[in-house]
């Protein structure tokens, strides 16, 4: 049994985006019809996921990349046999990687229910399978961030943004399936940073960093990040000043297009 979720903020249909009725009708045509549950925010979604009946074996997010990342982030609330799917309302990096060119095609792929078991990573108590960015609040300290890898490498970092990416699909990365890219952030005037942060809040999706000069790239199985100020991710979720990022025992059962390499 499938269960669909869509954030209330994404209900407005446009020329490019289908209405909930159109989606429901198409789902029925493919014999995977089920009511779409709307939710207000991440907390609301978490509560709904916790109440899922055991008959639900497939959970699908209808929305954009950030909404799907929210669902992945809450993967700990899903039992191990539940598969996760994505019905994108707009093209994005993740939808492209999953081979989902349009919402119509995504429904066909959901109906086929071809499952890929993927390695998943945790950041604090949340999960991600593709990538996540961490930013720090402005601070005057020279080296506000310390990164420690699972190989006991300690790296002291100036004001910077960090991007973690799952590279486990690259076969030779067995020892180091997680890539950490470090971007200098100290060249951006504070006004730009504030504006950028506000923009991020509004559009709620990943954009390029204001300054994207890469100053480091490290690989590992896990990383401990300590910061002089609070860390927040690209979805503006707060992690405090200390967070662990690493491989998790739980795997993600993701519905993908045939022959898709994630």
């Amino acid at each position, binding site marked *: 049994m499938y269960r669909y979720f869509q954030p209330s903020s994404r209900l407005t249909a446009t020329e490019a985006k289908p209405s909930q009725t159109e989606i429901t009708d198409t789902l029925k045509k493919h014999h995977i019809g089920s009511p779409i549950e709307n939710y207000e925010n991440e907390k609301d979604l978490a509560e709904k996921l916790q109440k899922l009946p055991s008959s639900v074996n497939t959970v699908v997010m209808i929305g954009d990349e950030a909404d799907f990342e929210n669902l992945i982030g809450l993967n700990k609330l899903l039992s191990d046999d539940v598969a996760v799917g994505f019905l994108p309302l707009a093209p994005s990096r993740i939808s492209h990687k999953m081979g989902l060119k349009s919402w119509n095609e995504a429904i066909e792929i959901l109906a086929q229910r071809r499952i890929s078991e993927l390695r998943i990573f945790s950041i604090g108590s949340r999960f991600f399978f593709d990538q996540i960015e961490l930013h720090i609040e402005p601070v005057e300290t020279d080296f506000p961030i310390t990164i420690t890898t699972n*190989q006991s490498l300690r790296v002291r970092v100036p004001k910077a943004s960090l991007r973690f990416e799952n590279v486990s699909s690259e076969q030779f990365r067995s020892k180091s399936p997680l890539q950490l890219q470090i971007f200098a952030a100290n060249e951006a005037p504070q006004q730009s940073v504030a504006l950028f942060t506000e923009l991020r809040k509004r559009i709620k999706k990943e954009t390029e960093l204001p300054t994207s000069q890469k100053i480091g790239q490290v690989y590992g199985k896990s990383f401990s990040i300590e910061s002089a100020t609070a860390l927040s991710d690209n979805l503006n979720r707060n992690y405090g000043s200390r967070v662990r990022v690493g491989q998790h025992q739980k795997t993600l059962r993701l519905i993908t297009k045939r022959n898709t390499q994630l």
Partner: protein
Amino acid sequence: MFFRSKKDHLSELVGYAGFFLGPDLQAEGSVEGDDDVFIDCQFKGDINTPGALEIGKNANFEGTIKARSVIVEGNVKATIDAVDEISVASCAEITGQLKALRIGIENGAAVQAKLNSGGDK
């Protein structure tokens, strides 16, 4: 002279796919790499990689190195054990021990090290 041309240096490669620590960082500890490594910062510790290692001009390195090949351009105090070759650039300052099948040192490099090259590996 077998010293590689500048464009062949790891640091010159576009997009640099391997492990790298730039001049703005400070690091200590160990690196067990899967691939090529480029260090261009203050670093104290050990590096062990089956790939190539480059110690950049901005680097201040202290520790031990095991790699397939090593290029040194910065300031290095180390025991270096390379399978293939060690190339020391003219701008490098190096003290310690160098062991490799081939060792190349450019004119101008400051080297105070015990060298072991050729078949005696």
